[in-house]
């Protein structure tokens, strides 16, 4: 016997047209539920569906039902054509995701080419990136970050799930060239000093 609260939350998640967070659900239940209590119930529901043909997944603190990836071949039809990204758009998206928040100039410094206005527009239209204020440096450039819709579309529970982000960070590959350069020169100096000593 599944309890009423659990049924209610399951039905909400099932019929919602966007992923829901615990706070939204608590608000809608109108009871004296804390988001933490709701979250515990959501996890019970997710566990109940684990390994079935419907999965309850978390994306950026919001939950939604979807089909498991291993069944894609049965469900995919010709009409299913997710947004095809140009190589430039894919690269810009990756740079925003791994470096966010990031300005257009910083994106261009990594790619070595100017970013056409259309590339950012495509990503904003897809609602995968969004402006995130301005960098407080001369010129106050606009900076960009990824959105919850980005996490949802690419099946990421959070930005920590970005493929290889920990390794990239550890290798210093997310640091600007100047910083990496100073670090590399620092090591060399140490070696040199060692030799001279």
């Amino acid at each position: 016997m599944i309890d009423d609260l659990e049924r209610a939350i399951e039905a909400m998640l099932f019929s919602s047209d966007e992923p829901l967070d615990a706070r939204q659900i608590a608000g809608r239940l109108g009871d004296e539920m804390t988001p933490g209590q709701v979250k515990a119930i959501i996890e019970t529901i997710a566990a109940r569906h684990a390994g079935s043909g419907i999965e309850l997944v978390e994306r950026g603190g919001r939950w939604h039902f979807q089909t498991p990836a291993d069944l894609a071949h049965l469900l995919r039809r010709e009409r299913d054509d997710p947004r095809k990204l140009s190589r430039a758009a894919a690269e810009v998206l990756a740079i925003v995701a791994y470096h966010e928040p990031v300005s257009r100039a910083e994106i261009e410094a990594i790619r070595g080419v100017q970013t056409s206005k259309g590339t950012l527009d495509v990503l904003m239209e897809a609602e995968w990136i969004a402006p995130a204020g301005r960098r407080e440096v001369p010129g106050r450039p606009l900076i960009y970050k990824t959105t919850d819709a980005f996490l949802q579309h690419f099946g990421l529970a959070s930005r920590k799930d970005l493929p290889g982000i920990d390794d990239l960070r550890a290798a210093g590959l997310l640091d600007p060239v100047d910083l990496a350069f100073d670090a590399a020169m620092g090591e060399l100096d140490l070696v040199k000093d060692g030799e001279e000593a």
Partner: protein
Amino acid sequence: MEGLSLAFNMAPPPTARDDALQLSFESWEGPLDLLLALARSQKVDLKQISILALVEQYLRFIAEARELKLEVAADYLVMAAWLAYLKSALLLPKDPLEEPSPDELALRLQLRLQRLAAMREAAARLLARDRIGRDVFLRPQPEGLRDVKRRRWDASLYDLLAAYGQVKLRSEPVVHMVSRRPVVTLDAALHHLERMLGVRLDWGELADFLPADYRGPLRRSAIASTFVAALELARQGRVDLRQERAFEPLYLRTATGGQGA
């Protein structure tokens, strides 16, 4: 200098006519992109790459392109010039005073290539994830959670009656009623003033000559009529009028002959 000297190993450079690299500039997103593709053809980790060999590859690539009379965009030529400078600097005996040193320039180029390569790989891994609509599917037409706003109209009985009052006022034929106002005629005022002047000999204010029982609108009328009556009697030489200046009280008395105001 262990790391850097390793980077400048003269690996046998792959030819620019390598199958993977068509001599078409449309395939490249700028010189850095081309450099990265050339670096990849060295088939070593980017950390181990020979920058000198890479420079040679790039310069040869550009030279061949120009031989074939391909249009080479300015930024590729700028990069070529810079790399040619870097190459000579790397090959010449080191000048310790030169800032920045060619080794440092080479290191910076290598770091940039590593970063671009890392993001390119990250993009590929990102696109390969289980994407909605391709690998995982949602309900096609969820009902959605809806808040239906039920409009509740608000009006009081007063609003209703006031509105009806307005309608009635608008629609009723407009009749202008001029109310009959009590007045003191000039004749009555003259008569009264004459009588008062007979009793009173000294200067008196106009108001003193008004009948005491005139109140309200009647009093206003009496002031006006008595004033006109006073003017009339003055014209006939029967009263004297005196006023200090405009708007000061008006005084009158029975005419004493030739001493009027």
